[in-house]
């Protein structure tokens, strides 16, 4: 188990280094000069040269990369910005904020949006899917399946403002979406994020309804489910304790993949509702040719996905003893 874990972590670190190198190279492959972002409207050439020097951009690419990588572990002293303690991902070209603290600062927002939406979509998607499977062929099944098709065809940027218009502006049921730190007021955190969660999860929920329904139906036909019934287990017990357990494996697999998509959806959701999360940082970093921020956000994204993949593997082991790690 420990060895498996170490191997996975080493692999993850490798992936992150590769991603950072690729980002670095791609960034410089684009014929665009980030130094110009630091120069005034009328930009004398000597200023441009000075800025390039300040940013370390007059060093060869691999030296720049090495400085950056070393900074992650040992910190750096950057002439344009000052001291940057480890783990130093540099300073944002655009805001002059340390990238690491900018990301840490926004992480709770994105995590709240993503995981809240994940909880909503799993709850709704899986529960409706299970109801559909339970009621297979009956009206409730048909209602659940039909509503899932409608849900799948909706878009965040369409549903978002619509929901705000009705739930906030017209009916005043919910407060305008915003981020209130959970540590500050869990209740307000919850109600303020409810709309983003619903909106982000709605397009995914449908998938989970369909998938849960079909895997549940599949599982119900399994031999061990028949055995359970032959032992006298009630239909409900069989459904919830046995079939559901088997159905969780494909659901977790797809969910592991979808989490990455969900992070992408969180970006659009943040834009739609003016939430200050990683997504907003990412969009700005691209707009502003902000290499340090771009690298930081890319790496955090990669880190999140790699970590989630490991988590999904662990979850497999919890659900299915046959793949339990030794």
């Amino acid at each position, binding site marked *: 188990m420990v060895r498996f874990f170490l191997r996975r972590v080493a692999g993850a670190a490798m992936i992150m280094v590769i991603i950072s190198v690729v980002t670095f190279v791609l960034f410089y492959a684009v014929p*665009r000069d980030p130094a110009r972002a630091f120069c*005034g409207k009328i930009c004398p050439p000597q200023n441009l040269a000075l800025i390039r020097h300040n940013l370390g951009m007059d060093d060869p690419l691999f030296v720049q990369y090495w400085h950056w990588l070393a900074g992650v572990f040992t910190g750096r002293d950057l002439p344009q910005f000052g001291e940057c303690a480890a783990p130093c991902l540099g300073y944002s070209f655009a805001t002059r904020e340390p990238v690491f603290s900018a990301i840490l600062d926004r992480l709770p927002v994105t995590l709240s949006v993503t995981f809240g939406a994940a909880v909503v979509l799993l709850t709704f998607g899986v529960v409706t899917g299970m109801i559909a499977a339970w009621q297979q062929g009956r009206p409730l099944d048909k209602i659940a399946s039909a509503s899932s098709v409608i849900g799948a065809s909706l878009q965040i940027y369409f549903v978002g403002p619509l929901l705000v218009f009705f739930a906030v502006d017209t009916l005043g049921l919910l407060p305008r979406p915003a981020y209130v730190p959970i540590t500050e007021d869990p209740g307000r955190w919850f109600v303020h994020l409810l709309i983003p969660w619903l909106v982000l999860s709605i397009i995914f929920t449908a998938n989970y309804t369909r998938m849960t329904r079909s895997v549940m139906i599949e599982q119900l036909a399994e031999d061990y489910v028949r055995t359970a019934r032959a032992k006298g287990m009630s239909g409900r017990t069989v459904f919830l304790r046995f079939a559901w357990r088997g159905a969780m494996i494909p659901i977790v697999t797809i969910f592991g993949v979808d989490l990455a998509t969900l992070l992408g959806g969180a970006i659009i959701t943040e834009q739609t509702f003016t939430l200050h999360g990683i997504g907003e940082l990412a969009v700005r970093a691209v707009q*502003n*040719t902000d290499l340090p921020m771009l690298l930081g956000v890319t790496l955090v994204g990669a880190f999140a996905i790699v970590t989630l993949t490991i988590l999904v593997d662990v979850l497999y082991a919890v659900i299915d003893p046959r793949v339990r790690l030794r």
Partner: protein
Amino acid sequence: MSRTTPAGPAAGNGGITTWKGHMRSSRRSAAAAALLMAGALALAGCAKGGGGGPVASAGGTPVQAQENKAVSAITVGGAEESRGPAPAVPGSKRGGTVTMIDRDDFSHLDPGRVYVNYLSTVSLLFTRQLTGYRQENGRLTLVGDLATDTGTTTDGGRTWKFTLKEGLKWQDGTPITSADIRHSFERLYAPFITEGPTYVQQWLVEGDYRKAYEGPYDGMSLDAIKTPDDRTVVFTLTAPHPDFNFTVAMTGYGAVPKAQDTKERYDRKPFSSGPYKIASRVTDKSMELDRNPHWDPATDPIRNAFPDRWHMEFGVQAQNSTDRFLADSGADRTTMTFHNPLSPERVQEVVGDPSAMARSVRGLTPYTTFYNINTKRITDVKVRQAIIKAWPAKQIQLVHGGEANSGKIATTVLSPTVIGYEAFDLYGTLAKPTGDPEAAKALLKEAGQPNPTIVYAYNQTPTQEKVTVAIREALTKAGFKVVAKPLNAGTYYDAIGPVDNGFDVYWGGWAADWPTGSTAIQPLFDGRLIADNATNYSHLNVPEINAGIDAANAITDPVEAGKAWAALDRKIMEQAAVVPEYYRTYFGLYGSGLGGVEFDPMTGLQYPLNVYVK
């Protein structure tokens, strides 16, 4: 005529505006388009708070003189006008909190690093300069801000003397002294100050200012600035600059206290000399301002400070803010924006809604857009003139959403917001806004090139593709052969930057740094400034014009200087170095609970200094 440019294309630093103040880019196209649309409304004569309200001239009627009415109202004030407090605002009330929502946080607050209009707007609340613009009923006056007057020069603009008012204090209660002012200018030479304007730095030393002096932090000082006593500052320039007092009105030359200068970190939290100080700030999210108790309104002829607090939120897209202003509910009623324009798809709705119109801010910005003609490649002036003759101004405007969604079609280099602007239409563009292929053909025939090839470079965006089709059609009709070169939006400037860029026609935009012709014309058309990535994108180099620029720069009387610049404008248009596109306008909304929200013709944005909570 503004300190900086209104929101344009910026590939730049996340700021609200362009870092170069020119060129359209797809990323900013939303903002740009949103700005464009404001045009027609101002044209309908309903401009509020100055900036000019030219009457629509769709039928090709001659341009009306009243277009520059607001501009001619800009005057240079003396000691009397420089005295505080600021002009009263009828109906105004003290107290309350004003919320400001906008798309972007302020990328810089260190005055030395401020060059874009949006940053200047917020800086009005806590940064003061030697001079500034007093806005009263749409009339602008250059007045002494920290200085008792707008400066005095006895040698045609080479030596400038400013006297500080009495009772000026920083936010900690310490006095603002001439040493602070001197320090504020000296620190602009430090290597970390690269984003701001560089005029004064270059005027105070000979040669490369970066080599001449590296700032005051290692104990060295600049001989060109003298402080004979605590309240007097004397600048000695290397050459006369009669409009130096306009130059130092830029936020970029705002005051920074010597004792509180944290160098790089000053950008995060500047020390206030104005009515408010920064109480808290979270990058990209919010900023809170509260009153600076040491600011004395009696020293300030510019700033009314009615609200007790300012609460600012960032990351609100224009679409979002427009919807909030239209809903006008709860705290949004006391909310305004500095920059966010009306989102284009809501324009019709707002125009048809008198209650929303009553809460709108409209006006002509200092920003002009145009198509550069590369005079290095198209050397025959008649061919260049033929391009302007054939140009499909109206078709392009239609692509941009018609008059309501774009700017007013321009026929000059100078914007109506520049002192001395004269309206003229050398090529009859307003009479034949869809182009005059016959006249163009005649010009080409005269030039002996009936079918010249034109390489047109453009940003590859859906809108620009359509514009390109219109241009191609119109020019082809006149006999041109058009080769369209699509450019990647992210690298547009890098592609057109080199002098030897290989293109004949390409889009650009500009706003003067202060409302005289010098920064509207010299950076763009002084042939001696041609270099890779410099601002003279048309590469025009006419000795007569270069000499004219020098002559105009030497005229001390603003009105006379204005006439000289207007004459140069006409000469440049005769040379057909650019095809003017629009004089851009601003159109935005605010909440019903606020009063005194005005248009700021200096920035082309909403003006914060007369705002009050009803």
